[in-house]
């Protein structure tokens, strides 16, 4: 097999600070290369250099053995490099076919040749064994299907190297399966793939070779057989982690924090009973669309429920979100960017958002800046938020893990009794995940009740004291920590058994 792309001593510095240093590796043709590394390890800069968006400070690249010096992203596209991004770059208001041809519509006699477009589109889709009509609007497709459309666009542009950056973050397990099958299929058709992911089991399953980056440098590489998952983690974080999860440091106590009875919202959740105790981490598992996030929204007062009661520490709860917050609830939503953070605001501004009123002094509620500085600084230390200056650095400049810490810290400032955490480690790299887990453990240890929603069963099994499983809006059963069993939980989630 020949090398499709080789990097030779590639380096890039931003204002004198190296983002990549002397990175050299090759991608074999018709193989899948996995690139792993924590956030900030230099993956994106490296990809941007390959994609022609960023010019290397030194080093060079070879494409099929010839020098490759892209002047811009268009050069990369021209020779056949395509990116499948984390945030999809599709026009949701246009059809699949229009998205495929967005760079230039074929014309006949001055008019757009729709017949040819639809024919060609159908061919490309069938190469990916996709059976939907090219005229369907992209906005009506699921995230997984959209991703496949993005791949179809790459194929349409005759890409020979496809770069996937965290492709599975917004996919259901079933869609993930489909994506993997597609990638295998592409490989067999001769496409070369670079696969970047935090989900190491996926990397292990999919890739032929591995490249590990740390602090901008290539720390190790080899074939997948040489890299069991613990070694991957060790290489990424540069030390042994002693397991993925911190040991739980407390036992749940008896007192009930949250009690929900008979919550029903037609078509979404059905007669849900739920309790969370002090110091308990309750895991809520279910497949996508099982109603987990919807249940969380109802519990937090964001959505109304038709029937049922919610009480917190024995007091019944109703009314708007505010009432729930004041009663002692906190909600870390699954969508950090859109619902959790003000990306352009500073870390401190984000931290104080939920407790602003508490910082008001006097009849005009003037903000007590000293107290803000003191409390936010304390929170930064407590949560180990890595930011240069919490008063000037915007949230969007932080890594995913640190952003999540800010969202948690925002609620911590209110010292809530119940935390609802929806996908708390989504988009967070391995090292930071461990920190988030520790944080969750500490909150529980101080007596807080936690309801943790996740699609990663391993995560729930590692952290939860009890796992409740949902399927199609109903609770199918619960499993205590001592009885945790992967097969059984999944069976509950697929609705194959019920208690």
């Amino acid at each position, binding site marked *: 097999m020949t090398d499709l792309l080789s990097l030779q001593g590639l380096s890039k510095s931003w204002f004198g600070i190296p983002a990549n240093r002397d990175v050299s590796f090759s991608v074999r043709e018709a193989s899948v290369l996995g690139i792993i590394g924590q956030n900030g390890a230099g993956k994106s800069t490296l990809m941007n250099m390959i994609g022609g968006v960023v010019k290397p400070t030194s080093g060079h690249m070879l494409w099929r053995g010839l020098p490759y010096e892209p002047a811009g992203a268009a050069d990369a596209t021209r020779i056949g490099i395509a990116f499948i991004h984390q945030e999809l770059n599709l026009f949701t208001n246009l059809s699949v076919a229009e998205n495929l041809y967005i760079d230039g519509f074929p014309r006949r006699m001055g008019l757009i040749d729709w017949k040819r477009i639809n024919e060609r589109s159908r061919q490309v889709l069938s190469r990916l064994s996709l059976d939907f009509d090219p005229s369907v609007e992209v906005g009506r497709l699921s995230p997984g299907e959209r991703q496949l459309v993005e791949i179809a666009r790459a194929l349409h542009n005759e890409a020979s190297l496809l770069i996937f950056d965290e492709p599975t973050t917004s996919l259901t397990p079933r869609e993930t399966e489909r994506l993997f099958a597609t990638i295998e299929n592409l490989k067999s058709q001769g496409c070369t793939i670079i696969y970047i992911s935090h989900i190491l089991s996926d990397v292990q399953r999919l890739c032929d070779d591995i490249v590990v980056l740390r602090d901008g440098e290539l720390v190790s590489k080899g074939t997948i057989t040489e890299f069991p998952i613990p070694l991957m983690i060790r290489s990424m974080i540069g030390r042994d982690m002693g397991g993925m999860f911190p040991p739980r440091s407390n036992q749940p106590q008896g007192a009930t924090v949250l009690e929900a009875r008979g919550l029903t919202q037609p078509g979404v959740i059905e007669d849900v009973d739920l309790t969370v105790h002090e110091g308990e981490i309750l895991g809520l598992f279910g497949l996508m669309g099982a109603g987990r996030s919807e249940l969380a929204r109802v519990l937090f007062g964001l959505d109304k429920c038709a029937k049922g009661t919610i009480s917190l520490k024995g007091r019944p709860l109703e009314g708007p979100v505010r009432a729930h917050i004041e009663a002692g609830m906190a909600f870390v939503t699954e969508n950090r960017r859109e619902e959790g953070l003000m*990306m352009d605001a500073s870390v401190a501004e984000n931290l104080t*958002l939920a407790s602003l009123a508490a910082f008001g002094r006097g009849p005009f509620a003037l903000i007590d800046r000293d107290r803000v500085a003191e409390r936010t600084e304390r929170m930064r230390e407590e949560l180990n938020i890595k930011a240069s200056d919490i008063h000037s650095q915007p949230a969007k400049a932080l890594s995913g893990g640190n952003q999540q810490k800010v969202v948690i810290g925002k609620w911590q400032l209110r010292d809530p009794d119940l935390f609802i955490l929806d996908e708390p480690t989504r988009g967070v790299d391995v090292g930071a995940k461990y920190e988030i887990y520790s944080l969750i453990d500490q909150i529980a240890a101080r007596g807080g009740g936690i309801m943790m929603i996740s699609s990663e069963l391993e995560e729930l099994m590692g952290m939860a004291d009890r796992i409740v499983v949902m399927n199609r809006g109903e609770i199918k059963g619960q499993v205590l920590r001592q009885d945790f069993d992967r097969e059984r939980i999944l069976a509950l989630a697929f609705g194959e058994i019920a208690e």
Partner: protein
Amino acid sequence: MSSSPVPRRELKDKAVDLLLSDQFVLYLSIFYVLLLAPFLPMLVTPANLVNVLSNMWPLLIVAIGQTFVLAIGGIDLSQGAAIALTSVLGAVLITGAADPATFANTPIWGWLLTDAGGPLAGVDHGVVLAIAAMLVAAVVIGLINGMAVAMFAMPAFIVTLVAMMIFSAFALWLTQSGNVANLPDDFIRLGRGDIVSVYFGAKEEAKIARRAIYSLVTYPMVIAMCVALAAHMLLNRTVFGSQVLAIGMNRKAAEISGVRVRRIIIAVFVLSAVCAMIGGLLFAARLEAGRPTLGGGSFLLDVIGAAVIGGTSLFGGKAKVIWTFFGVMFYVIMASSLSAMNLSAFQIDMVKGGIILCAALLDVLRTRLKRERVR
């Protein structure tokens, strides 16, 4: 220059610092004046500076109200109509006399307005009461705008566009496009009264020509500075202000964090209408008449343009009163210089439009620089 050349990056960093600083538009204004002064010496004469200032105050107050609405990612097109309506209302209440030839066929003739003027003419503290009534009208306008935007989730653009049409037509209808003059001196003083004036010149001059006396501190100045200071504190120092900006940056996140989003949106529109009313009060006072056509024409362009030049983002979440202050200042200086160049009204509007466009481009540049700096 000297033997040790300044590293280029350092210079570039300094330039970026300047571009990103709060005072950038102030520096720009100073630079602009210095650049033009040799060609247009009248620009820096005390008389012109006094003019520039007096043109600045009412506009500043209105633009401050707009700044709050822009801060939540909205826009208030109804400010001009609020000015028209409140100025007419206030003037009708306190006017000392009304000409039947103009007003006899208005819907308010007879019961509100008569030959002898409005109901508050000659009443003790009539001016205060009239201003209170204007305030109430402004609050009502703001409430209508705010409720429509907050409760029914309608776009601010449409809501305030409709409000603009309705309220300005209402003001025209009330007086059948008549201007309400004969306002009491107490009212007029608000628009043009000097508190401190100065005379630059020789002491031995027997009779000082009036136009050699320059007003330094005027009522509009005092009022505008008070409004600006209060608004600055409100937006950048209080819980309310932080919540306003939070809504502008990410409404969903603010909602989930327990911010009373609707209530604040309503409050912001009320604030905007009230600021418009205060600015309108100054306009009406200096023109010595309530006018249903005040705040029309390209006035809104001036208000939004000045706020945007200052650096307030049209997308919300990024606003400071001090920016608007400098924005208005630059805008007024620019307008004064353009008219000093003897350009026609049409050329002036074209140049103004171009400068607002540049400001918007500059904002994009600043955002990008900020992002790069963060890396």
